[in-house]
């Protein structure tokens, strides 16, 4: 099994916020905490594109690197999780994360009393007994252990947001790209770290000249 990944297809995302509420629903995420959000670029003009973003479960996770208590860990299938019992709510992961994934239940409060960090778990719960009450209370439900994928992707209205094993997700996306003969770029973790995007664009420029 490879790594678990999210992929958002900007050609399909219609900013319906289904993913956002699906997440709220599945994990009873409180008001003010948004493990996932949809952002629209070039809003209201031709060229408008929307992208759904949450924790991208980075390979080189900045949150992990800056955490003073080292409360993050990565599962065998590449999901970045954390132990809320060790989280001190310092907010450093929020400073470091490119995607703004870490959320805090109290928001930006005086004396830095943010509360314990909360973020997308890829619906994989946390380091409590799988399926236990404690796990649900702290991290939400553990769909991965039930053989299911994150609900945001499963409920995506246009299947723009895909989740799952990187190779399967890539296959699905590839099929689409073949159909539409373009639109190969998708929101993935590479977008944040660069490299991939420039390569893709160079490739497209070449293709365009042919």
């Amino acid at each position, binding site marked *: 099994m490879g790594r678990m990944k999210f992929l958002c297809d900007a050609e399909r995302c219609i900013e319906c916020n289904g993913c956002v509420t699906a997440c709220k629903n599945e994990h009873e995420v409180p*008001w003010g905490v948004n493990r996932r959000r949809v952002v629209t670029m070039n*809003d209201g003009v031709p060229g408008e594109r929307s992208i759904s973003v949450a924790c991208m479960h980075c390979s080189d996770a900045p949150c992990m690197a800056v955490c003073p208590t080292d409360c993050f860990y990565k599962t065998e299938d590449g999901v970045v999780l954390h132990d809320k019992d060790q989280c001190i709510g310092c907010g450093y992961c929020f400073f470091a994360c490119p995607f703004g994934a870490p959320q805090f239940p109290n928001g930006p409060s005086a004396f830095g009393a943010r509360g314990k960090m909360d973020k997308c778990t890829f619906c994989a719960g946390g380091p409590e007994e799988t399926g236990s*009450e404690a796990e649900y209370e702290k991290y939400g439900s553990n769909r991965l252990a039930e053989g299911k994928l994150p609900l945001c992707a499963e409920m995506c209205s246009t299947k723009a947001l895909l989740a799952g094993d990187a190779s399967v997700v890539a296959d699905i996306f590839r099929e689409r790209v073949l159909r539409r003969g373009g639109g190969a770029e998708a929101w993935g973790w590479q977008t944040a770290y660069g490299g991939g995007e420039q390569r893709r664009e160079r490739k497209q420029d070449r293709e365009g000249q042919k």
Partner: protein
Amino acid sequence: MLTKKSTVGTGVGRRLRSSAARLVGQTMDRRGFLKRSGLGVGAGAIASQLPYNFIGAAEAADAPVAAGAGDTVVRRTVCTHCSVGCAVDAVVKNGVWVRQEPVFDSPINLGAHCAKGASVREHGHGEHRLKYPMKLVDGKYQKISWEEAIEEVGDRLLKIREESGPDAVYWIGSSKHNNEQAYLLRKFVSFWGTNNTDHQARICHSTTVAGVANTWGYGAMTNSYNDMQNAKAMLFIGSNAAEAHPVSLLHILHAKENGAKMIVVDPRFTRTAAKAHQYIRIRSGTDVPFLFGLLYHIFQNGWEDRKYVEDRVFGMEAIREEVLAKWTPDMVEEACGVPEDQMLLAARTMAENRPSTIVWCMGQTQHTIGNAMVRASCILQLALGNIGKAGGGANIFRGHDNVQGATDVGPNPDSLPGYYGLATGSWKHWSNVWGVDYEWVKGRYASQELMEKSGITVSRWIDGVLEDKELIDQPGGKLRAVVYWGHAPNSQTRGAEMVEAMKALDTLVVIDPYPSATASMAAMVRKDGVYLLPAATQFETVGSATASNRSLQWREKVIEPLFESKPDHTIMYAFAKKFGWGEELVKNIKLEKDGHGWDEPNIEDILREINRGTWTIGYSGQSPERLKLHMKNMHTFDVKTLKAQGGPCDGEYFGLPWPCFGTPEMKHPGTPNLYDTSKHVMDGGGNFRANFGVERDGVSLLAGDGSASMGADLQMGYPEFDHLLLKKLGWWGELTDAEKAAAEGKNWKTDPSGGIIRVAMVNHGCHPFGNAKARAVVWNFPDAIPQHREPIYSPRPDMVAKYPTHDDKMKFWRLPTLYKSLQEKVKDISKEYPLVMTSGRLVEYEGGGEETRSNPWLAELQQEMFAEVNPKDANDAGFRNGDYIWVESPTKARLKVRAQVTQRVAPGTVFLPFHFSGWWQGEDMLKFYPEGAAPIVRGEAVNTATTYGYDAVTMMQETKTTLCRVSKA
């Protein structure tokens, strides 16, 4: 900054705790809730038993719940928030709705949901609901018991009936009722003795229903969301599907991915426009010039389907002459502001990529000439030969989850269930179905004349109260009581006048899970005489709902009604008993006791009664058993065609899309695409309906030779079937003796045995409603050929002079209705109010929004009412993005909203979402709400400020083109 609402707990636990507390009627902490709901241990084990995917789901769906999983059940229901009909699997543990799972098996949504669909489990907590019956006492809402409520309300209404006649009470039904409840309400209102009843379809797609039905037979979406996958080009005009019907985009973008071209025509650059190949910005309200402008190029270039038009369309020549003479490119550009090259490109795209489809919604229907606009759309599709073809059609996306069903069989002022109308014969037919004496029903009415006369529409009930008594075309005069049964007040225009009407009423009754918009408006102007009764949601009862594509889906009951709420049909029966005709109402319907000892009419029996009566539109084949079988075997249906391949539903179309003719035993598979001659009628094929006579001005209205449905014994045009035609054709003998007895003297619509239909369809492959031409010219409409007419409040006085509106009507749906006199009066008002004010949907909210704004998961995403204003207009008025502004309309009403300065709208246009209520001209109405029932998010209702203007056929309200001005608050 994180924005917090003080009404909402910050912790996960708090919300659950409080809702759980109510569930059991005592305090319970989160731990207790989780225990009770079984969310803790074993959730994984339970979940693995769900029908989790379509591969091998056949076994999973029927798999017995594993031992040790407790009493966890999975109930299949359908999202209640729009007409797409997305299936939902609700995981219920110990009576608590603990999880919501996607239904990948559903051929309609494949597990997909928008924000609203993904949040329906919140209904299982339902914190901001009305919790018990209440009445307004001295300006404050007080709790009363159900028994008191029925007694008091019943007495008040009976007194009004006694004093002013049955027509003095107005019954506003709901598109959120399931088919059975909607149908029962029409029956209920009939037994009360009035046609003064209506529901959301009036202000949603009434112009469509009238326009489309008069063009080719049935007033509904011809194809389906799924069928759009077959389209090669798609034209969206007045539809923002990406926000209003997000899951439809699953099929639409799939089609786009496979090469379909997408054109979006809208005054506003919508989320749908963002996905289009071509976006065309038209001036609001100029759909007819635009559509005829397309036709101009089509006729000019000979792109019309000549054979099709010749065989199947009446009056296209007249249209052609009109279009070529009147809608030349310069005239089109003058009217709607679209240059010729854009028009030509769009016309070419539609013509060269056939089958091409057209989609329209309220952007087209909610106009004073909505009926003409929808017909122009129909004519475009007829000219291109797209109707009756997979991938083509007129895909009219409806609004509410069951607005199609409520239109078909529910409370309409002009028709009994199934579009039977109000003629004597129709009453006799339905009296027969109901098992009551026609004379008795007639006796319930003030007179036979009133029994057969269309009632007041929901868009105008306020005039039924405020208009001069002499001018109201009913003997009793004014309305004295209004019953809001599942309808939001803020979705009707002229809100400022509505509160005056509410004030003038004797009694106002609101029956709704979320009645608070009406409640607060009433409490603002009244001290007493208002009753609030908590209704159950559709997750708390069973029944069928008809999606926009005419498919019926069966909802299982997910949870017991929360608090003291009761299902609508239970409430109907309780009132019927109080009124003294409980027995008549449920003659064919079993009663069951609910948990509180109340009688609940059996929903399945109601559906069977619908089946027995609604032959016209084929609501006769969808028995509860067949619908349930479909829900269970969703995975066997093909996504593109909706046809089951193998399995117990083999050959049937998903949800038996109406018309599903004949008796359930006849096994008609339903009709996925209307008027499709490429299929046999017993495989969902068809042709245009013969509903308007057989000839007009010497021209035959019947279809040409060779244009009948596949395999029909009559390969030519033919009229609708009745006992005479059957005898003439020599097919009478094919009826059984019992059928003969029943069918004698009847036609296919009134034959209670269904024998005529059986013989025509099964034996001879003929369509019972005949085979005729569609009408491009509808001679019974005010404009036989659709005409552009400027809205009453037009931003263009020059165009008003050129394209004036209709003449005033004195007796129109029982009310005098203004057109020209008002337009004349206000034709220069655009000097003071220079901006076009238009309204529309947000993806997070639905309808009046009271329900969705009470859902914290949705409310968090749209916390404030806003107005979209172009940067130019904002700069001219001196405000910036995020400022509070005043939006003022010619009614002098003022709305205080946040400015969203955006390019989505062009200079000169202001867009406001219509889902908000709870503010009144700058003031928060919180203190007028029943305690604890105020929604989380409140804001100005756009309709507080909307102006006068009604469609000349259906009384549809004008919401899309009126005027306003903006200033910094």
